[in-house]
């Protein structure tokens, strides 16, 4: 960037205004807004290539992607194929974790029609609403996002007027006005949980960035497009009481060079402490399975 280093500013004089005007004319017109616009144009172009939520593909499509790639990855995909049947890709726009979670959760409810689970999560959402209010968030700033999520939840249950088909769920997940609102809903939930239990999360946040918990939430959780890490996943899983399995596809292997695919189950804190019995079965096998490749999350379907 050019600047006007050459100018010596004498305080109290008015000359800077006039001399500056002509010199900076050309780049003065190129403003941050233009940069933002260019950025969103690039994003829009990328967006055309992959939808927010893709179609379900057999895991062989993942194998094809790494056909001539790193042998450890190829081997791991082979191992994955024993347990998982399919993958559903999401757009790598920084919201992929939340977007994957959204689709995987709503699809699960659509397929199982588990009303008890819907009632349970609805109660948790209400709790999150109270959390945000107690943290000082103005209700009108987040209520639209909450309402839209609850609407989607309602619509995947059959027998109501608003019931939708699986195709419609896919369409909605690709519709920015719905999809982004639900992602933003999860961001609010996640931020509220982290701030509510800031003492617990502080060391984890410190491990990621050099900021306070509050600053972390403001700069790395709430803004759209900010990528998710284990802090986000832990908080979302805890807040909603939904266990999540993350399967890691990276180049790591043990000393002997033998390959196994690691996974980590995020089990809601509430399940571990209280009523361990009722959660036991759920905790044992999370119904949300996500594939993590460094920097990106997609949805996995077990066999």
């Amino acid at each position, binding site marked *: 960037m050019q*600047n*006007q*280093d050459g*100018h010596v*500013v004498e*305080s*109290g004089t008015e000359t*800077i*205004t006039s001399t*500056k*005007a002509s010199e*900076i004319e050309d780049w*003065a017109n190129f*403003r*941050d*807004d233009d940069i*933002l616009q260019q950025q969103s144009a690039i994003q829009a172009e990328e967006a055309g290539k992959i939808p927010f939520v893709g179609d379900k593909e057999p895991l062989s499509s993942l194998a094809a992607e790494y056909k001539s790639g790193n042998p450890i990855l190829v081997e791991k995909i082979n191992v994955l194929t024993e347990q998982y049947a399919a993958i559903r890709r999401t757009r790598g726009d920084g919201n992929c974790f939340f977007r994957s979670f959204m689709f995987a959760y709503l699809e699960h409810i659509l397929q199982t029609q588990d009303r008890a689970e819907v009632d349970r999560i609805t109660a948790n959402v209400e709790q999150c609403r109270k959390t945000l209010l107690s943290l000082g*968030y*103005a209700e*009108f*700033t*987040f209520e*639209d*996002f909450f309402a839209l999520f609850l609407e989607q939840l309602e619509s995947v249950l059959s027998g109501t007027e608003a019931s939708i088909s699986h195709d419609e769920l896919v369409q909605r997940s690709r519709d920015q*006005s719905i999809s*982004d*609102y639900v992602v*933003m809903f999860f*961001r*609010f939930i996640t*931020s509220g949980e982290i701030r509510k239990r800031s003492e617990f999360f502080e060391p984890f946040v410190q491990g990621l960035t050099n900021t306070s918990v509050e600053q972390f939430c*403001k*700069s790395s959780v*709430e*803004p*759209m*497009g900010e990528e998710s890490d284990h802090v986000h996943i832990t908080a979302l899983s805890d807040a909603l009481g939904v266990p999540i399995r993350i399967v890691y596809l990276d180049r790591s292997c043990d000393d002997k060079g033998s390959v196994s695919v690691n996974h980590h189950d995020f089990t809601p804190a509430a399940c571990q402490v209280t009523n361990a019995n009722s959660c036991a079965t759920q905790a044992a096998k999370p119904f949300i399975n996500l594939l993590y490749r460094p920097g990106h999350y997609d949805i996995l379907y077990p066999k």
Partner: protein
Amino acid sequence: MQASRARLFKEYKEVQREKVADPDIQLVCDDSNIFKWTALIKGPSETPYDGGVFQLAFSVPEQYPLQPPQVRFLTKIFHPNVHFKTGEICLDILKNAWSPAWTLQSVCRAIIALMAHPEPDSPLNCDSGNLLRSGDIRGYQSMARMYTRLAAMPKKGELVFR
């Protein structure tokens, strides 16, 4: 479009309710267009902007509140993070750190905070930024105060050079 309109209407009602609570900010919606707002903010005390009243123009995009409003100073101001010609503001929450948790009102509060705590390391007004970075606090303050008097004082006639 519908969502942004509904949200802005809520903010409008909130602004009416909060008028008394925040005497430093007067946020007004355009009579005919809810996507256009203007604000009058008071320069914070113990800064060179003290005593000045600064006008901001808001242009709200259709994707609001997922996308930030565009805000700029209409009143001339000498500040490292405000473009001297266009009034454009360099503030993270108006760019990539935006989230729907912010409101037009809280954006005004953030701008007032920016006036009190300039960030000379990311300047839009390099003259102003350089004064601060080189440690010439008096120089910066006197320039900023001069422009406050010239442009942001309700009565312009009383301009005094010392």
